[in-house]
């Protein structure tokens, strides 16, 4: 128990001291994941809308691909990006490996299916009649899409939160493509692995607390959104 208690005390002291090393890692983690989830939103929400409302050839296969992507192990995503960005890979000339953009690309690969899949499910739950109602009142396809996403906004927000939650806490992909380079690509999860291996349990635990805190906020938000529930009709 002694080692655990010592680690807890050290972690609290570290967070309280505002150590620059700690906050550099936290901010990089948040920056990388925020940019990645932003890109995932730009790609995933329109795609999710089309998959949610569309009746086109290949829709079912597309949904299977997206749903499979939702369960893509981060380490596999990292491996794929690594192979593409490595010197001998098709995008090797971009020299992005072991950089922040490489980590962002890997996290986009992980979070986009999550945002797309959850968005598609929430859009599909908006009754067809509501879209017909909008159309019957003169809405163009674009206005109809905006209204539908607005009506499904709780589900769409949950998709974004799920996408963010899925990448802020992953370690496999960013470790492979980022390399865990100090002051460059070290993020919370890779730092926890490193500090734990070095025996610096206090630092690892401090980062762990913060990660749990962020996860708590995200899940609290998700739960609140799910509990509030959307009603489409009376």
């Amino acid at each position: 128990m002694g080692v655990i208690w010592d680690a807890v005390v050290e972690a609290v002291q570290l967070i309280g001291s505002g150590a620059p090393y700690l906050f550099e890692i936290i901010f990089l983690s948040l920056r990388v994941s925020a940019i990645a989830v932003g890109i995932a939103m730009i790609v995933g929400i329109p795609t999710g809308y089309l998959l949610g409302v569309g009746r086109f050839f290949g829709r079912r296969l597309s949904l299977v691909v997206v749903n499979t992507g939702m369960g893509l192990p981060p380490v596999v995503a990292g491996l794929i990006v690594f192979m593409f960005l490595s010197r001998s890979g098709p995008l090797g000339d971009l020299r992005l490996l072991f950089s922040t953009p490489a980590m962002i690309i890997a996290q986009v690969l992980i979070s986009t299916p999550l945002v797309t899949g959850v968005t598609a499910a929430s859009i599909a739950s908006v009754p067809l009649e509501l879209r017909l109602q909008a159309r019957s009142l003169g809405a163009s396809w674009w206005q109809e899409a905006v209204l539908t996403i607005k009506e499904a906004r709780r589900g769409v927000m949950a998709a974004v939160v799920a996408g963010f939650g899925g990448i802020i806490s992953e370690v496999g992909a960013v470790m492979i493509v980022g390399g865990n380079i100090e002051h460059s690509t070290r993020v919370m999860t890779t730092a926890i692995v490193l500090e734990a291996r070095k025996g610096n349990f206090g630092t690892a635990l401090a980062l762990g607390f913060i990660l749990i805190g962020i996860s708590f906020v995200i899940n609290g938000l998700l739960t609140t959104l799910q509990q509030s529930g959307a009603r489409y009709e009376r």
Partner: protein
Amino acid sequence: MSDKTIPLILAESVCQKYRRRVVLDIDRFEVFEGETHALLGPSGAGKSTLLRIVGLLEKPDAGVVSIEGREVTHRSRSARMMMAAVFQKPYLFNGTVAENIGYGLKLRGVSVAERSRRVREIVGRVGLDDLINASALTLSGGEAQRVALARALVLDPRILLLDEPLSYLDPLIKRQLVADFSRILRDSGVTTVYVTHDQDEAMVVADRLSIMHEGRFVRTGGVDEVMGLPTNEWVADFIGMEAPIRGRIVGLKDDVAEIDCSSVAVHAITSLPIGTDVVVGVRPEDVTLFAADGLPASSARNILHCVVEAVEPRGATARVRMNAGGLHFAAAVSRASAQELQLEVGSAVVAVFKATAVRVGAAS
């Protein structure tokens, strides 16, 4: 000014299939400016499908829809802008009553001030003044459906499409809203297609109606004509009448025709000439029953001695099926009357109905 000879809505040779099953197959459907045309039929008759097709909300597998003589498709947004629809469920959007009602105006780029003025005006017409700023998701079913109607009417549409707008409401609210809807539609003069499976509702709101069955029209015409004169057994059963009565006009005196129906004389008002083979119908509600030994002093031209063939309880009323010398027809009587007359199979009664209550059509 619109040309009254050209239907405002015309659908021709329209066919729609869902999973290879034909759900709609009609030759011609037309609605003229200012009329309320009800599509009446049981569930699965194709009423809502037809409404969505003429409302340009669904693409038919075959056929043509024209608005004011101009061919249009589900992509014709300008034609769609002439219409507004109210569905079974109101499907109100998140927001206030005012925001919901103003949604279509906002889509049309109407200014905030003008929008506000028109919304205030319409909430008065549908009786929602007190709820204008309430959240739309907190309304009762009846209030929500009024909002849905207001949301459509505020656009001042040329065509209003109503798809079973009252079917989910409880009977009390439904009765109130049927009367209100009828008044509002009449006052606004808007051309309306009204889908319903409720005959009473159709008879209150419609000028003309079409009865649909398995995706086809089985009867179209004026309300009294369609609801009073079945042309086949299915229609008769659906509208609550006995099978069509066939006969021939054998006499005409003071505008009252004498029709020989299975050797029983029935008197009716008709302009058809003597010798015409006809179909005759009388609605059960227009028939009054008396005890066989108590012949009434009545000015009614049709007084028939009948034998009761069946007594079927129908809620507050009973439907009495009778045979008058081979002529089969029915009467609707209150439960109290049924008890008083001691109606049972084999009872002898006298059925009385006026010549004006008898619908007559030329036999095809």
